[in-house]
């Protein structure tokens, strides 16, 4: 049987609660659809495409209605499926035309799915259900509601046109739905992205990290540079060509995606650092998604756009620009340090928390900061130390 698929990316979805308005960050992060963001080294789209391919669907078309210039959108393109950028105003029309093209090309069944939600649906039982029920259109339903995942008969162009003109919201003829009990994540907010990452690290989904498990629960991809005194607490993922500088702590289901940098002494706890992101030194990132000059806190349900180079910045996508970028930082850093040494005095030196040299092991004290430790009793040794500082 000739089965093909159309995947819709960046097509606007609807909230389950139709009474509330759709927020700006709904199903996207800084304008990039969540379905195009990487989860443990690979975009969600690729995970979906690979799943469809493993079910024997080789002909796939991806229609992208999101801004195509972002490097993350570029990352999601691959040779083994057809990619088409469409404008958001013409998106549904383009989907209809694509369905017609597939039907004319001999497709007997066409899967239409919107990302949107990430759902692990068993394709063979779904197709069998569609045929057994003699449906023209079959919608998939999960435990928490309907999914934008349909099987359409290639010969029923009117049903397809009706469905796509109604933005997957209405079917021409109501039919019995296929209920899935597979893993479903609505991927509507940054919290959903975090949940998908954690569920994948905890092996609750079929997503596996793209990297080598060099210690139980710690995956590191090729080209990652992890300095010696970094503590990685399972489960966590360090993506390809990333750099984790000394004194850092990556813990509790965190994911550092490709070409990102975590600077010295920074804690990344239950957070995702998106590709090509720089996270400054001495920070404490907790329950957040960071990247594309934006921070989204799951804890506070808040988003912040920031361009402060000492906190969060973007690393250039091209390797040439990255080299120039690194060189310019070095050129700026060396005279700054020289001036600081010459005129800064001792107080300035002690104020900057330098990481220890890389041959020493991880020092957990600055990361943990036990409260009681900072408030020592006034013993004779403490007084002696205070006097020493006074003399300096």
């Amino acid at each position, binding site marked *: 049987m000739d089965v093909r698929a159309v995947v819709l990316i960046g097509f606007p979805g609807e909230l389950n609660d139709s009474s509330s308005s759709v927020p700006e960050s709904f199903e996207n992060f800084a304008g990039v659809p969540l379905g195009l963001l990487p989860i443990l080294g690979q975009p969600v789209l690729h995970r979906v495409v690979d799943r469809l391919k493993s079910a024997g669907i080789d002909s796939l078309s991806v229609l992208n209605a999101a801004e195509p210039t972002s490097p993350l959108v570029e990352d999601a393109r691959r040779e083994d499926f057809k990619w088409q950028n469409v404008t958001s105003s013409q998106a549904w029309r383009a989907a209809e035309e694509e369905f017609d093209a597939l039907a004319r090309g001999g497709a007997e069944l066409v899967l239409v799915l919107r990302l949107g939600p990430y759902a692990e649906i068993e394709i063979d039982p779904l197709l069998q259900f569609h045929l057994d029920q003699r449906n023209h259109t079959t919608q998939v339903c999960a435990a*928490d509601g309907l999914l934008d995942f349909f099987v359409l008969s290639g010969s029923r162009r009117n049903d397809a046109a009706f469905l796509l003109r109604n933005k997957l919201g209405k079917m021409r003829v109501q039919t019995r739905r296929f209920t899935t009990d597979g893993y479903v*994540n*609505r991927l*509507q*907010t940054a*919290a*959903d992205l*975090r*949940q998908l990452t*954690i569920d994948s*690290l*905890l*092996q*609750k989904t079929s997503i596996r990290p793209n990297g080598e*498990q060099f*210690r*139980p*629960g710690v995956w590191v991809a090729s080209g990652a540079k992890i300095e010696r*005194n970094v*503590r990685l*607490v*399972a*489960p966590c993922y360090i993506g390809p060509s990333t750099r984790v500088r000394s004194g850092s*702590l990556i*813990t*509790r*289901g965190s994911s550092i995606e490709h070409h990102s940098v975590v600077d010295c002494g920074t*804690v990344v*706890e*239950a957070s995702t650092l998106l590709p090509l992101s720089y996270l400054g030194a001495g920070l404490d990132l907790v*329950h957040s998604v960071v990247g594309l000059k934006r921070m989204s806190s*799951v*804890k506070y*349900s808040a988003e912040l756009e920031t361009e402060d180079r000492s906190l969060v910045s973007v690393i250039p996508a091209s390797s040439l620009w990255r080299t120039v970028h690194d060189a310019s930082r070095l050129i700026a850093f060396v005279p700054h340090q020289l001036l600081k040494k010459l005129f800064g005095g001792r107080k300035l030196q002690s104020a900057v928390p330098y990481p220890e040299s890389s041959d*020493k*092991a*991880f*020092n*957990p*004290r600055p*990361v*943990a*900061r*036990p*409260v*009681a*430790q900072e408030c020592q009793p006034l013993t004779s040794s403490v007084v002696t130390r205070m006097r020493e500082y006074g003399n300096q």
Partner: protein
Amino acid sequence: METSRPVVVKRMPEKVNQLEARAFFADVQPFVTADRPQLVFDLSQVKQLDAAGIEMLLRCVEEVMKRDGDLKLASLSRQARMVLELTRTDRLFEIYENSTEAARSFSGFLPNAMQSIPSYSQREAAPTEMAA
């Protein structure tokens, strides 16, 4: 991923104050300073844990990391969990439901036995810790 090195499980005392912490450290020091040590501290009996106890835990993890080993915690009592969370030391450790699982985790990843992994409800944004 299989490892043939031994895993040492030590139960921490009920009170971990300065005196007890020092005694406990002296007790575990041979294991901590071994080559690539694999240690599990069972905190099920801990009722009191003060700054000296936390300091001792940090010292142990520091020593273990120097030698390319690891230290994991298991069976945290409520009191121990409170202090570890208060001092934010909990995020430095893999924490398991019991010491058997913690010991087994040196040989392979045991996602279902881990504690303190945040969970985000799809309807509510605020993170919650997964209960034991």
